[in-house]
């Protein structure tokens, strides 16, 4: 089921190569700070999209990001293990917990998964904020989480302490995430996910177990949420339970919906557009920032049902119609 590369793939790769050389043009730390955050959110939006692809919304997706962040930070700070071991463990723990939750809740149709994940998110927030404060740090959370470093004695050593260095690390992981998502999307598994999200009973009538694949999709998504969390913890250096509350999941869902659900590049585009908009442009409006942001989201949903990703297709469609008339 491998398709030929499309023009859109080439465009996006060109953008990535352009971003690779960005440090040649600017050295401003703030810009790289925002780009790193955008990268982390792209990974997170992709993970959210994986679960939306099986037709479910996980309101606890940021909680899984939080689980990844706390696990990774605690492994590095308490056990003094390197980030490169902590990160895969964080991914694995997030995915394993989501397997258990998927097993419990995905049997039921309708809104149960949504409601259950809502409860789970609130429970974890309350536990992290008020219990085992010696370990989790309570409401102020964990601080002074170290940046990762990498060294092979005699060859090289990188300490991802500046934002530009971290920017490259995140870019590589974003590329890996997009690559994996693209492979899943084009594989048989991706087709199965699409079939399940369109009609679960119809998909089951062909003999596959929808529940099994939904649990698998959920675990893949939550694993990547754990990756995003691990990166977030070591990039920002401070994590609090509030960062991963139920309110925090809504903005990334907006990224996915505005970008375009279902496709791999939609969430990437939506995240980049909305985050760049709010961090580079809307900042100047102060109080009005969130207001304008909300209006923009409502307008895009209202007038672009398939999200920003549909713009090139629509433009070529209009162009085709115009040239036909002439």
């Amino acid at each position, binding site marked *: 089921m491998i398709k030929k590369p499309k023009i859109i793939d080439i465009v996006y790769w060109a953008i990535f190569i352009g971003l690779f050389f960005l440090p040649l043009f600017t050295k401003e730390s703030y810009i790289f700070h925002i780009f790193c955050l955008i990268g982390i959110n792209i990974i997170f939006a992709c993970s959210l999209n994986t679960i939306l692809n099986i037709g479910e919304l996980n309101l606890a997706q940021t909680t899984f990001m939080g689980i990844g962040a706390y696990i990774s930070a605690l492994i590095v700070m308490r056990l003094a293990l390197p980030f490169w071991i902590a990160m895969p463990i964080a991914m694995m723990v997030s995915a394993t917990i989501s397997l258990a939750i998927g097993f419990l809740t995905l049997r039921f149709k*309708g*809104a*149960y998964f949504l409601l*259950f994940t809502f*409860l*789970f998110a609130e429970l974890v927030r309350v536990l992290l904020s008020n219990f085992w404060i010696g370990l989790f740090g309570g409401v102020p959370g964990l601080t002074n989480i170290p940046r990762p470093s990498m060294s092979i004695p005699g060859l090289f050593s990188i300490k991802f302490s500046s934002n530009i260095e971290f920017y490259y690390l995140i870019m590589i992981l974003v590329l890996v995430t997009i690559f994996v998502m693209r492979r899943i999307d084009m594989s048989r598994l991706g087709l199965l996910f699409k079939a399940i999200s369109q009609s679960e009973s119809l998909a089951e009538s062909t003999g596959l177990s929808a529940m099994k694949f939904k649990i698998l999709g959920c675990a893949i998504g939550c694993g990547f949420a754990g990756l995003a969390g691990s990166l977030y913890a070591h990039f920002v250096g401070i994590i609090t339970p509030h960062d991963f509350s139920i309110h925090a999941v809504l903005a990334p869902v907006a990224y996915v*919906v505005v970008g375009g659900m279902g496709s791999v590049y939609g969430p990437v585009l939506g995240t980049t557009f909305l985050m760049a908009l709010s961090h580079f442009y809307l900042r100047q409006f102060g109080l009005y920032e*969130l*207001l304008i942001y909300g209006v923009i989201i*409502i307008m895009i949903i209202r007038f672009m049902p398939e999200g920003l990703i549909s713009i090139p297709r629509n433009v070529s469609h209009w162009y085709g119609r115009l040239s036909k008339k002439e």
Partner: protein
Amino acid sequence: MEIMLLFQGGLNGIMLGLNYALIALGLSLIFGIMGIVNFAHGEMYMLGGYVAYFLIGRFGLDFFSTIIAAVVIIGLFGMLLEKFIFRPLTMRPKEALTSMIAAVGLAWVIQMGAVICFGDLDRNVPSTFKGIINIGGVIITKERLATIIIGIILVLLLNIFLLRTRIGSAIRAVAQDKEAAALQGIQVSRISSLSFGIGSALAGSAGALMAPIFSVSPFLGGEVILKAFLVVILGGMGSIPGALLGGLVLGFIESIGCLFFSVPSVSAITFSLIIILLIIKPQGLLGRD
């Protein structure tokens, strides 16, 4: 003395519970009819509080007229939102998710709009009823008693409307099966608009009711929507007695539980219990599925 404390907590529990039930009824109604998880529902509660703040505090209107005004104003506002934001989103693929995100955007817009228009300070609403009533050692302010009575009246009115009138039956029919209801000649779009209005009005009336007891601020909505979610999960999606029972259960747990345990422990235990309930009985206490 201990027993008196329990009764005291119980009365507060009933008041809180009715408040939660009113909000959750609206949320449940909107979800049942339109399938929208309305994240802007809490903002209707907040706006209801501001209606009370302006009408009672600034214009000196009496409490009952204020509640009626809140029902009308927030109800109409809800219908406007339905017409211009949510209705165009229906009949699209992934309608439920897009309308949910539109509701999230709407919640931000309304919240920040309130900050800009009304300021971000906590506002106090003067109470209409002064004095206390002593029922065999249990003390309740007249204000809280009035809130409980008006809350019960509102729930009863909703019940009569849904069970005894033609429009009420039409709403229940649409909640059960949209297509079948349309085949019976029910105008589904009109029912959707009405339900959104009624649902919003319920939250608005709860906000106005509670305004003299708690203070009013633009950030009320976020907290309230989470409580309403809990109530709906407890009682079962789409069940009116369920929402009432769920609201009362949550109100009692909060007011009585806090007499014995710390607040975080109460919420941790509540969430754990509801999770277990959801696993054992996914349709909630009184939900049908």
